[in-house]
């Protein structure tokens, strides 16, 4: 199994190198004549008058938390989905393997409906 992942490791390293190389090349080949006007942040023709990093709507955090929860749900579904056909073929496990996942999903769907009703998914 591990020998299969060796190319993946190499590929990730090559990917990073592929990102570094053009920047280095650009630095070497292209002109480099910075001045203070050129290096100022992009704005509509005036000096920026405050730090751009400001507080943000809490909605984005809520969205990120909901994303984590559903992402975990996907992680739990993955092994189940891979053995579903096997479960369907085994008489003793058939209904058990089927319903346990739907209890799991059912509980989360209740949460999803509640979140929806609360209006947490509305984007105003």
């Amino acid at each position, binding site marked *: 199994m591990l020998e299969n*992942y060796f190319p993946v490791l190499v590929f990730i390293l090559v990917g990073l190198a592929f990102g570094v190389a053009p920047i280095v090349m650009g630095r070497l080949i292209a002109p480099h004549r910075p001045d203070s006007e050129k290096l100022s942040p992009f704005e509509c023709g005036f000096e920026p008058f405050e730090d751009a990093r400001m507080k*943000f709507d*809490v909605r984005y*955090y809520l969205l990120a938390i909901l*994303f984590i929860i559903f992402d975990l749900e996907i992680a739990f579904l993955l*092994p189940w989905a891979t053995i579903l056909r096997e*479960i369907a073929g085994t008489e003793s496990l058939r209904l058990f393997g089927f319903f346990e996942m739907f209890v799991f999903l059912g509980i989360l769907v209740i949460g999803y409906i509640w979140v929806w009703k*609360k209006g947490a998914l509305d*984007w105003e």
Partner: protein
Amino acid sequence: MEFKTFVFYLLATVMVFAALRVVTVRNPVHAALFLVLTFFNAAGIWLLLQAEFLAIVLVMVYVGAVMVLFLFVVMMLDINIDRLREGFWSYLPVGAVVGVIMLAEMVLVLSGPYFGLDAMPEPPAAQAGYSNTRELGRVLYTEYVYPFELASLVLLVAMVAAVALTLRKRTGSRHLDPAQQIAVKRADRIALVSMPAEKE
């Protein structure tokens, strides 16, 4: 040295270094990014332990989702570093106690009979057609079915708590419900009135 051992030491070194940087760098965004690097190396080490599914899920869930939230928070919350440092000395005793307890627990667990090469033999070499994910599924959905169902309850609680803690209705928003916009009928917007032509 075998190549696998070399990779292990490489990953372990980077991981320990990154973990140290998480607690030593001053900028919280850099700290969060070093934590990402730590998770990434941890995933690599899990992969070396043949835990294929867990290793990749670690990247998917922790790096792909949890750390995105962390970054959102530290990037957008405008954390004032000086204010954070103010309480350092008053929090130190509490922090030290927690640290010592954790250290003691780690020593107890790791020095017990559960670890070591004789307690944890190398997993048998995988046969053709072996699938880590499938094996995990077979165990998780039969033997560990109750913890599995409990996990969904934990997630439900997390969902409810997140919404209860952070959801605020905005006032003065000019939001229009798209469903209503789409469902609008001609009759809602326009009324045709028949008026007889007026004669002078």
